């Protein structure tokens, strides 16, 4: 047990990553009562955005980012982190505009634009694979795009706003998640081959505890920034108001759609940061399916802490990370195989929910009928 401090450090670091992702789940649940199952996949896109940013920066600004030693250049590392946060923030916005907003309102332009672009791109890719000429492939792509736009226009105009149920939104979230994973697998997008962040040969540039500490610290800074935004700014106040009662907030003149969009962007940016922190600093492989398990664990962390509650998500994340690490480290000594790490994490969830159905910090509010 003498390596306990080391194991706790690893656990806290893993937990801080779960917490960063869990914040996105919990905030979106707060404003929309929606479990955004696509959130884990945003984290996956964050890793790819980071590797793309590293590559671009290395190509365009080789003096700023010495590409192979990505991390020893602090400015380069910060730029990559910010780039990934911005890209994921935008992705969060797009997901909200294209997939969830049309379920609440009569919006059709944004979904047609983004979904149609994706459908058009896939149609174009298929057409080129089928040895069509480039011009006819582009025409097929545009036709597919236009077809989808027309379909959305006709259906959206006839529905009454707010008719989509929460179940519809939940299923849409699963759909978006599957879309991101399987779109990413396409050879033209990310392909299913695992990737690594570039790294230089003298691997021990950063001592392990410095690396672990760095991940933990950056997560902490991001969480403090989030707390500041939520508690001290106007938009933060609006988020809290919408989370408290969205109808009343709308009556008070708050543009709830804008608040919801901002919340998505904020959560997605945190997930993007988590993606770069994990895969950029730990140099582990990632593929388009890497978000599934992380997303699930972070979701469990959010529920564990009380979904909708921001400090709860952080607490839940840290508990999950510590529990998992301690199982891997000391489980084998008492006959629990380290492959039980996931099982133990989920068992913990069941146990806590038995005694506190609203999670550790959640308030149990019986539904008034």
């Amino acid at each position, binding site marked *: 047990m003498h390596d306990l401090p080391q194991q706790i450090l690893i656990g806290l670091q893993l937990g801080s990553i779960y917490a960063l992702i869990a914040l996105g789940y919990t905030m979106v649940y707060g404003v929309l009562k929606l479990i955004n199952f696509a959130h884990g996949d945003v984290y996956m896109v964050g890793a790819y955005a980071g590797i793309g940013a590293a590559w671009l920066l290395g190509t365009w600004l080789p003096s700023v980012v010495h590409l192979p030693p990505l991390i020893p250049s602090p400015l380069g590392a910060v730029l990559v982190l910010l780039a990934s946060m911005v890209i994921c923030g935008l992705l969060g916005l797009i997901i909200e505009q294209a997939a969830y907003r049309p379920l609440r309102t009569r919006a059709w332009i944004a979904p047609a634009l983004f979904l149609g672009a994706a459908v058009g791109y896939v149609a174009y890719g*298929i057409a080129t694979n089928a040895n069509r000429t480039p011009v006819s492939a582009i025409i097929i792509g545009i036709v597919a795009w236009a*077809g989808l736009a027309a379909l959305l226009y*006709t259906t959206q105009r006839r529905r009454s706003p707010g008719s989509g149920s929460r179940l519809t939104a939940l299923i849409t979230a699963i759909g978006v998640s599957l879309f991101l994973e399987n779109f990413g697998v396409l*050879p033209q997008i990310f392909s299913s081959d*695992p990737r690594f962040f570039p790294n*230089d040969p003298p691997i*021990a540039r950063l001592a392990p505890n410095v690396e672990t500490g760095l991940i933990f610290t950056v997560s902490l800074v991001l969480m403090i920034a989030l707390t500041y935004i939520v508690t001290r700014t106007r938009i933060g106040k609006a988020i809290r108001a919408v989370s408290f009662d969205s109808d009343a907030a709308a009556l008070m003149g708050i543009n709830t759609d804008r608040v919801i969009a901002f919340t998505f962007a904020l959560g997605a940016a945190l997930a993007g940061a988590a993606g770069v922190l994990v895969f950029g600093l730990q140099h582990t*492989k990632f593929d388009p399916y890497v978000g599934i398990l992380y997303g699930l664990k972070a979701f469990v962390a959010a529920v564990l802490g009380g979904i909708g509650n921001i400090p709860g998500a952080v607490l839940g994340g840290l508990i999950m990370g510590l529990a998992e690490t301690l199982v891997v480290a000391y489980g*084998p000594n008492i006959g629990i195989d380290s492959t039980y790490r996931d099982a133990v994490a989920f068992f913990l969830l069941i146990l806590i929910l038995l005694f506190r159905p609203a999670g550790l910090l959640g308030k149990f509010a019986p539904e008034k009928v």
Partner: protein
Amino acid sequence: MRFNRASTRQLCGLFSAAAFALTFSGCANKTVGTSPGGDGSSASSPIVIGEFASMTGAQATFGSSTDKGVQLAAAEINKAGGIDGHQVAIHLENDEGQPDAAATGVKKLITEDKAIAILGEVASKNSIAAAPFCNSNRVPMISPSSTNPKVTQTGPYIFRVCFIDPFQGTVAAKFVTGTLKAKTAAILYDKTSDYSNGLQDFFQKAFVAQGGKVLLVRTYQAGDPDFRSSLTTIKAANPDILYVPGYYNEVGTIARQARQLGITAPLVGGDGWESPKLIEGAGGPGGALEGCYFTDHSALDERDPVVKKFVESYKAANGGQSPDALTGQGYDAAGVLFAAIKAAGKPDGGDYNSDAFRAKLRDAIAATAGYKGATGDITLDADRNAKKAAVVLQIKGSNYKNVIATFQP
């Protein structure tokens, strides 16, 4: 208005139908070596061989390396006039490294493509998933490099042209106790892989038999992002070597995190390390795997004329790139199969896909003895496994093929 709306929808339906039609035409099988205009008479119709491989996914280099070897063997035999005037057509199914996809792919190859024999896979769990269907349909299957004993135990129609893990594990144990003078070892293996499970077990037994002591055994699951918790306990145990019988993807990360935590003991592994991407995953040349060892099928020693010919024709076909051992295994698996088809002779009635011919083909493969392959001489034993030498390779810089020792069966 009503009419307009309906017509818009019909139009959309049409578009999506068109898109779907394109999807299917886009997914058509990759076929090579079909004889020109040979879809008419049965006399010149191609002999269809099915191949399943992980062309994408977590073990993508296994599939692409093996497939290049198979394609080269097919191209060579077709150039030389084929088998009895019939060209050979390789139908490739990508299983993405997933056992269920391997099983489905092989079903398609046998029932739809009418393959008379199957080549594949590298990862043992995929071969084990596909073998029962081949065996029950009496279609011979040759695995190029699945080393888990269970693969060929499926039944009489399943073969392999590589050694098996009891031998590979023994070789690793003899090497670490003999050459590296290791007295203690720690093992970190992938619990979800048949290959990793089997190999660690055989290594452990052989290592203990050689007088070594296994200090601790830890497990992981393919796809785990973080091994530091297990590695921290391994570091505390301070073993002479760390045995990691996993696949190349995880090995790079494990090595990097082990070195970061200050584990200086060499990592030792098996043929699952064989990949052009092995070193990249460990942080590039001179990275975390520098100086580590693994057991493998062959180092493709070019002093042997058969190997030299293979390497040269491979380079000519692949823009000067060097083949790896898995390419050689793929080439040999296809070579053994083609030789057996020739040896089985002409089928009665000219149907290569008859039960009678496939039974003859099975016997011909089983009788393979002294076949001069690129990865060594191949003789299949009564258990349908090849008796072949194993090499121990060391990773130095960007080269992972420095031969340290060769062990005869």
